[in-house]
């Protein structure tokens, strides 16, 4: 009885799906049936420059037109970091100190100290200028995380505050969702732009796009730094 019901349900769903797909002629684009309707890529490219005043088309698609997908991506990263932390959490208590095979030489330590601010600055530049130049929140966040990685490798006692990381990450996530919810203010939709868009190629342009990308940058940097710190402090059984 149950199987017949499932088959019936599948048949009904399949019938309507097939009906929808057969409406589109084979080999025709769904969007250019008549010349009056533009393909979606043209609309994106036109709106990017004319309405949003963003010079990087990738950023305007990732944060504005497909902003909800970006929220999903950030959630995926958050969930995987949480899973990693929960798996490695058990052992952390009776390990304590990080296992060090040999300490880094003075060249490595002073070089890291010199490079660390430059790397963090580069990361911040990449995510603040996400709407003007290539790059964005994810890239900038990863670059900052590599800076912290360098410090963690060079200094045995260098430690990152887990509470600080979680506060930064939560605040960034709240900013993202909060800015998205503010889009409802003027009767719009989630993540709709509500700020003045400004001039093309200016730093303060693009409405909510820079705010969201800065939030994403902080979130990714905090999450990945947490991952590296957790994995580095995990001491396995040393073989030989």
């Amino acid at each position, binding site marked *: 009885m149950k199987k017949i019901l499932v088959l019936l349900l599948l048949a009904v769903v399949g019938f309507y799906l097939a009906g929808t797909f057969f409406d589109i002629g084979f080999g025709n684009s769904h969007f250019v049936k008549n010349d009056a309707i533009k393909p979606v890529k043209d609309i994106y490219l036109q709106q990017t420059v004319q309405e949003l005043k963003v010079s*990087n088309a*990738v950023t305007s698609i990732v944060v504005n037109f497909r902003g909800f997908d970006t929220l999903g991506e950030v959630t995926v990263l958050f969930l995987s970091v949480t899973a990693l932390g929960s798996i490695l959490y058990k052992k952390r208590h009776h390990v304590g100190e990080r296992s060090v*095979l040999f300490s880094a030489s003075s060249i490595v330590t002073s070089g890291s100290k010199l490079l660390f601010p430059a790397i963090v600055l580069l990361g911040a530049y*990449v995510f603040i200028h996400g709407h003007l130049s*290539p*790059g*964005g929140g*994810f*890239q900038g966040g*990863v*670059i900052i*995380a*590599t800076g912290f*990685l360098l410090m963690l*490798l060079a200094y045995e006692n260098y430690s990152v505050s887990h509470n600080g990381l979680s506060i930064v990450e939560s605040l960034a996530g709240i900013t993202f969702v909060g800015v998205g919810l503010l889009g409802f203010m003027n009767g719009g939709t989630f993540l709709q732009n509500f700020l003045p868009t400004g001039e093309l190629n200016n730093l303060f342009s693009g409405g909510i796009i820079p705010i969201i990308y800065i939030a994403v940058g902080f979130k990714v940097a905090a999450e*990945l730094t947490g*991952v*590296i710190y957790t*994995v*580095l402090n*995990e*001491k*396995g*059984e*040393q*073989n030989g």
Partner: protein
Amino acid sequence: MIALILILVLLVLMIAASVYAVRQKDLLYAVIATGIISLILSILFYLLQAPDVALTEAAIGVALTTIIFVITIRNTERMEVENDKKNNTKSAAK
């Protein structure tokens, strides 16, 4: 034309590095080879006019993934061992 030749050379290098990474028994060398694959891939992305993806690939593929694999190798075993061989050596040790 020069760009095409450069892209072809890079692709051949990428394939060579991938084969090396698969064949190599020392996992540390294999991880370095995968890092080289990511590096060449990011150069290719840059040549194909996708600088956003090139930045992501360079930061994640070359730096983060390689380092996390290296840390994992340090905490586990460095050499790749065949399954039956491993069992033999363990039973011999007992």
